[in-house]
């Protein structure tokens, strides 16, 4: 994966978030404060605006770090720090490489998932976006960067949050009543991986 592919991915992700912002906010009304779609849309539109300034020869790590900074400052709420931390950790794992090989991406995904867990003081199985990130990171470590497989893992991770009792964030206030609701952060994370897999499959 190189900087051009990263830019393609982020462009597609911004479009998917724009198309689904109302759905994301609606999901968030059940578990949070109903602004996940608006916040993510604001953040990824700012990312989109930055992309023309990124040159093909810039390192992927530089772009990932830029995205982290933008998300941290523009998304707000809990999602800003969580997504921001994920991109920061991926950037750190990719430093010094012009093209990211599979091994680097496996490490980047693992460290992103660990970063989210640390920032949110969360563990897998608590009904958050971490369930998507950790499922994908584990799958990548076990079977490698198979994009079809990783997209299914992301979907599984997202769907699994529906049956979980939410233990972190505002959804935790609902306790058992949170069962039956899919986590909005898990859905936006699914979009992130779905668009990533699409971009990479398209360039194979």
């Amino acid at each position: 994966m190189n900087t051009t592919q990263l830019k393609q991915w982020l462009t597609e992700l911004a479009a998917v978030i724009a198309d689904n912002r109302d759905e994301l906010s609606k999901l968030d009304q059940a578990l949070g404060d109903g602004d996940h779609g608006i916040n993510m849309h604001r953040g990824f539109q700012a990312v989109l605006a930055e992309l023309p300034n990124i040159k093909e020869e810039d390192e992927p790590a530089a772009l990932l770090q830029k995205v982290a900074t933008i998300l941290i400052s523009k998304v707000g709420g809990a999602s800003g720090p969580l997504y921001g931390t994920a991109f920061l950790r991926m950037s750190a794992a990719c430093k010094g490489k012009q093209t990211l090989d599979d091994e680097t991406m496996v490490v980047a995904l693992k460290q992103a998932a660990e970063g989210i867990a640390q920032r949110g003081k969360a563990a897998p199985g608590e009904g958050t976006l971490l369930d998507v990130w950790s499922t994908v990171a584990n799958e990548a470590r076990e079977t490698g960067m198979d994009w079809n497989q990783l997209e299914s893992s992301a979907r599984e991770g997202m769907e699994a949050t529906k049956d979980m009792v939410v233990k972190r964030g505002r959804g935790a206030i609902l306790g058992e009543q949170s069962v039956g609701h899919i986590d909005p952060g898990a859905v936006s994370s699914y979009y992130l991986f779905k668009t990533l897999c699409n971009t990479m499959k398209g360039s194979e």
Partner: protein
Amino acid sequence: MADRRVAILLISHVKALADGAQALMQQANRDVGIYACGGLEDGEIGTSIERIRTVIDGIPSDHDILVFYDIGSAKMNAEMAQEFEPNRTIMISDAPLIEGGYVATIHAGLGKGIEEVKRNAESSYQKGE
């Protein structure tokens, strides 16, 4: 008396809430530095690291900073702001924003150090993680 003074930073999702809490505490002691960071830039409800960092920048560097927050994501943003300012002593208290901040103001006004102020605020009022 501790060597360094303690400033209180109140982070809320709502501007009026942070400003109101600040007014309440300032009335208890006019000499303690109490700083409010409520809501987003445009007056919307939320918390942002950028706004928190701007307020922190305005706190004199000879003050240690004790943070009180309202709900979860405010804490997460406060923690990130804390990581961005490694050269400052910033501690985050899980005591409730208003009650904890009020107790902290009284103790900061007595010239106690940040750890003691935090301990006093938390031993009066406890809340979960």
